[in-house]
């Protein structure tokens, strides 16, 4: 019994160590790959970013709308409907925008990355590359990682902007908040620091989500079931990691 627990723990430690070494390797080679294999990176920006734009925009619109609805319903009790803009703006820019974008990214792009790399491994494409002295980390993994890292802040910005537009539509056009009050209150309450907090978060989440996706794919058990499992794990682990890091960043920023 004790033996088994120890074995499991050691196995976990080994996987964790391999993961950290893999991350270091990806980080170290990233700058060089960015310049030498730029077309590959652009292709991955298309796969991870441009193809996610529709889901991001639709989600953003509705999330912004629902925030405005909830804010309005509660603020109305204090006759403070004019501050709907502050509520929606703060929530979208600092929290909801980066976090939901990261979760959607994990579901849309992260799974695609993991299963693609996992399938390449299952069909021995990665071994074939190694055979030809082509480093699969540099040729396959890093361009996908960089594509995700570049895409995430842009996707987050699009999500937040569309969200603000959705909140505007619900609050101003539907619930009758004054348009001037909505935007003026929002602009007065928000500082550049708040916007930057959202942008920093999106950069960190981009790195986390992309790294975990490529790691899960690269580390997948090379069978059909293994690739499926890697895809699932990508979503689960990314969601947990993003939410934990979100808490830590928010705590660090607000307790400063």
């Amino acid at each position: 019994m004790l033996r088994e627990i120890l074995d499991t723990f050691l196995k976990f430690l080994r996987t964790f160590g391999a993961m950290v070494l893999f991350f270091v390797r990806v980080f170290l080679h990233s700058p060089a790959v960015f310049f030498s294999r730029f077309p590959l990176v652009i292709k991955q920006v298309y796969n991870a970013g441009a193809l996610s734009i529709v889901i991001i925009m639709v989600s953003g619109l509705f999330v912004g709308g629902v925030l405005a609805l909830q804010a309005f319903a509660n603020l109305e009790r204090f006759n403070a409907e004019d501050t709907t803009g502050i509520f929606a703006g703060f929530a979208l820019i600092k929290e909801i925008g980066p976090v939901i974008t990261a979760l959607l990214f994990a579901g849309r792009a992260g799974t695609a990355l993991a299963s693609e790399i996992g399938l390449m491994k299952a069909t021995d494409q990665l071994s074939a590359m190694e055979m030809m002295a082509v480093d699969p980390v540099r040729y396959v993994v890093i361009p996908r990682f960089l594509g995700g890292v570049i895409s995430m802040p842009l996707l987050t910005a699009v999500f937040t902007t569309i969200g603000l537009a959705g909140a505007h539509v619900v609050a101003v056009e539907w619930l009758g908040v004054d348009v001037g009050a909505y935007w003026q209150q929002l602009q007065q309450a928000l500082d550049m620091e708040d916007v930057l907090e959202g942008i920093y978060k999106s950069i960190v989440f981009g790195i986390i989500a992309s790294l975990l996706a490529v790691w899960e794919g690269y580390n997948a058990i090379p069978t059909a079931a293994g690739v499926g499992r890697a895809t699932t794990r990508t979503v689960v682990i990314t969601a947990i990691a993003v939410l934990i890091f979100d808490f830590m960043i928010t705590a660090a920023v607000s307790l400063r």
Partner: protein
Amino acid sequence: MQQTRTMELGTGLFVLLGIGALFFLTTQTTGRNDFDADETFAVQARFENIGSLKTRAPVSMSGVTIGRVTDIQFDPVSLEAVVTFVIDSKYDQIPDDSDASILTAGLLGSQYIGLQPGGSSFFLEQGSEILYTQSAIVLENIIGKFLVGGRPEGDEE
């Protein structure tokens, strides 16, 4: 070939959209009441109580923002708050006996410094000190007076 074109178009559109959205967020959603002047001069004022005045709070005259609070210190000798603020150098004809009071924007808004012009023919300049000041109105004190005294100040018959 056709596929490359679609990919390039899509990527270009995506990156453009993203950068446009970033631009919108950084320029349009943050406060535009930011005071920025190339040249400023610093003025000091002492207050008995500054309430919840913070650095970067606006300094306004006739409702126009002409400066910004840069520093708030406590003077351990006179037991007063020393507020330093900068005023845009183009407003160099503010009488030096103007008085400064700490006001609140709206009922629950943030606090700012309001200047009321005096009648002196000397003007405020770098390093001047405003002598006539009025402290922030602390809501709790007013409520306390009502509870204890029953009658607000200046209401004697």
